[in-house]
């Protein structure tokens, strides 16, 4: 089976600093992979590279069949779902307005918006401006954004951060559904993850994969 992610000696440099120092990695479709490592190990940079948000400075790689050196990164971005560990929204718009904007942009039916808010437990706060949501609620909104999105490759940067026990259970359940539907999940985390969707763990240190 063609891997969703295939990297060989991938290097990413920003402002003269090598964020990734030669990552070699393969990820099969329909799987869940967890990236672990200390702060600054390169977890976020690797996720950003896989999402077409960083340029490959050296090495080779392909994601979802697109060559990272040659393909238009915009084509890749359109096919991934991104959950970053900061922001992600227009703070002055409400939770519902943010999701509607995303749904419209993606050509997804608007009915999905309220269903997604319901699923992540944000329906009562749907009209609240995003800036007034707590960190955990913002994280739930990010999950709702991904539910509306339905991407082929889910890239989740510290998805468990700021979530309470209920939120963690919700995320675990969501990841199981995603992987079962055939999509691929790559997530980063500091703490051990119990979701059955996660089938592989990749350890990063110094911008490289280590045993």
């Amino acid at each position, binding site marked *: 089976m063609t891997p969703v992610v295939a990297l060989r000696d991938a*290097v990413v440099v920003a402002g*003269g600093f*090598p964020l990734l*120092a030669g990552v070699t990695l393969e990820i099969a479709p329909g799987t869940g992979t967890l990236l672990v490592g200390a702060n600054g*190990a390169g977890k976020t940079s690797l996720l950003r590279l896989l999402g077409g948000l960083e340029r490959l400075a050296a090495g080779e790689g392909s994601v979802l069949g697109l060559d990272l050196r040659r393909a238009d990164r915009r084509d890749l971005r359109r096919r991934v779902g991104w959950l970053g560990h900061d922001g992600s929204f227009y703070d002055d718009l409400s939770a519902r307005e943010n999701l509607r904007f995303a749904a419209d942009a993606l050509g997804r039916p608007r009915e999905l918006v309220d269903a997604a808010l319901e699923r992540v437990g944000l329906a009562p706060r749907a009209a609240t401006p995003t800036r007034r949501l707590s960190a955990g609620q913002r994280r739930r909104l990010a999950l709702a954004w991904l539910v509306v999105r339905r991407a082929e490759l889910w890239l989740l940067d510290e998805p468990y951060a700021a979530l309470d026990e209920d939120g963690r259970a919700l995320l675990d359940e969501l990841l199981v559904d995603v992987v079962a539907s055939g999509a691929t999940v790559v997530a980063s985390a500091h703490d051990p993850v119990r979701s059955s969707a996660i089938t592989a763990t990749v350890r990063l240190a*110094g*911008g490289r994969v*280590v045993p």
Partner: protein
Amino acid sequence: MTRMLQRLLGPVTLASLALTAWLGLWVTPPDRVQGDLARLVYVHPALAWVALYLSFGTATIASVLYLWPRTRSVTADRVAVSAMEVSLVFILLTLATGSIWGRPTWGVWWAWDARLTSTAILGVFALAYLALRRANDDPTQRARRGAVFAILTAINVPIIHFSVLWWKTLHQGASVLTSTGQLNVHGSMLWTMLIGFVGFTLLFFWLLRERYRLEVKRDRLVASTVDEALAQRRREGV
């Protein structure tokens, strides 16, 4: 052949500028009306030609070549930034010589003349281009944004030119070659001007080449720093 021409560039530039200075200061006669002040004509138009046409044009063409995917190369980006820097120097010299001529002629160091004003605005554009490049650390981002800004500047040139021209103009009209194709300057004065044009044009290419070499050295330095950082980063993972 090319190498020999490259070697000759510096000496020929210096020789032609020295010849311009000698002819302009000692050989040519003072102007009937403007006296010695008219000797600026051997320098000012040539500086303006390099500043506004040659270097700005080079920077614009290099920027277009950089943005066009088929011709994109680090060389085009280096040429663009080098030409823009040289352009800024020549713009400042154009403004300075124009001002020196303007003081006794118009009675003020600065006049709201069309060409003077549009040249000054173009100078700010060149400064802004360099400021934009300094504000971006990532080489690709720096090159792309710089190229877009250079193109925006180029398409602004005629808009600024006509807006300021229609706004007000005091500047002396075309001196050497009028719109009817008639030559207005004769003899040694014309030759001195032409040699001045050649000298400053060569000076542009000389400065461009040296500035380009500096850019190559800087890129190598950055690359070696990145290599060092890469090795260090890899050691973190051991």
